[in-house]
């Protein structure tokens, strides 16, 4: 049975799409057949972050409307053949995502895939709701910043009351905290909420901490999910996160300040 995981946050710009791309890629790297769907109808972005923008022929809404088959619309990753991407439509019709349509596509994917990752748009409107509704688990992407934490709490409230699992009275959606853009130096100066602060406020288990890193931008420039970049701290953070999701017991890294070696101070190595 396929597992449906929503990547959500409420607030925009916190790293949902970056996380969706790296998380889905990471699951595929570990040998799991994974589909990642962009739910941001009207503002397609996942295809760019994953470097497949020139290969989009049909999209999610085309499949829902029966204008294309799922097979035609799924884009197979060139690096990892277990990874498939379903792009968002650029139509501005907000009602394009119907509950029945989304359910039909998810059911069809579930026959073939181990994991279905739903990249939610920002906000709590229809697209975000559709991405959340069918989820078994949720990655709640949060920045250590007041508005992001409050929005995450709001989204957790919606997940526990409005998701299909809640409506059916099943076990609740399993929630995971993903803390992104974390800067241990600023935390130690008292300028940024710490991991423990955010954990205490949101009261959900921590899946991973992704340090603030220049590599996230440089990777998105070239359309490579940051998890694929060896030697970057953000990439390592995402690889650890995927390992933990799959049940490995890995200690959290990037929570405390890394002391720079004399060598890197002198020669400016990152």
């Amino acid at each position, binding site marked *: 049975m396929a597992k449906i995981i929503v990547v959500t946050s409420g607030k925009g710009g916190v790293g949902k799409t970056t996380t969706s791309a790296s998380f889905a890629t990471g699951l595929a790297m570990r040998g799991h057949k994974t589909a990642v769907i962009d739910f941001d109808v009207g503002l397609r972005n996942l295809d760019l972050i994953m470097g497949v923008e020139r290969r989009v022929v049909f999209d999610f809404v085309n499949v829902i409307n029966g204008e294309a088959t799922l097979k035609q619309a799924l884009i197979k990753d060139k690096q990892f053949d277990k990874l498939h991407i379903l792009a968002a439509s650029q139509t501005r019709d907000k009602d394009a995502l119907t509950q029945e349509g989304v359910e039909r596509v998810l059911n069809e994917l579930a026959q073939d895939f181990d994991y279905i990752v739903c990249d939610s748009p920002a906000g709590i409107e229809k697209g975000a709701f559709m991405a959340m509704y069918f989820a078994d688990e949720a990655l709640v992407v949060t920045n250590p910043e007041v508005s992001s934490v*409050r929005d995450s*709490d*709001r989204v957790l*409230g919606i997940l526990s009351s409005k998701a299909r699992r*809640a409506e059916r009275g099943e076990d609740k959606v399993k929630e995971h905290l993903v803390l992104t853009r974390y800067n241990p130096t600023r*935390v130690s100066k008292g*300028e940024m*909420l710490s991991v423990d602060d955010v954990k205490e406020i949101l009261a959900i288990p921590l899946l991973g901490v992704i340090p603030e890193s220049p590599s996230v931008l440089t990777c998105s420039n070239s359309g490579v999910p940051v998890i694929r970049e060896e030697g970057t701290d953000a990439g390592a953070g995402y690889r650890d996160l995927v390992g933990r999701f799959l049940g490995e017991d890995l200690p959290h890294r990037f929570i405390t300040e890394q002391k720079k070696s004399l060598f890197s101070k002198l020669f400016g190595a990152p």
Partner: protein
Amino acid sequence: MDWLKFFRGEKKTSAQTAKERLMLAVAYQRSGQANGPSYLPRLREELLGVVRKYIQVPDDAVQFSVQREDGLEVLELNITLPDQ
């Protein structure tokens, strides 16, 4: 100048302020007043009016909260009557 703050006794960092503000904001959100049905404040006012027809109670005598259990939304009302 961090060391000056130490002598002035200004110990609260901006992160601590952020945490305190968030705790309050989140508590309000979870109490159901932020995400409950929009008619709740009016319902509360009217109930207060009805209770006051019979007995004098203070403004905070009618408390409500929206809770969610097993997929059901439960509106819980508490009316505190003053000691006789």
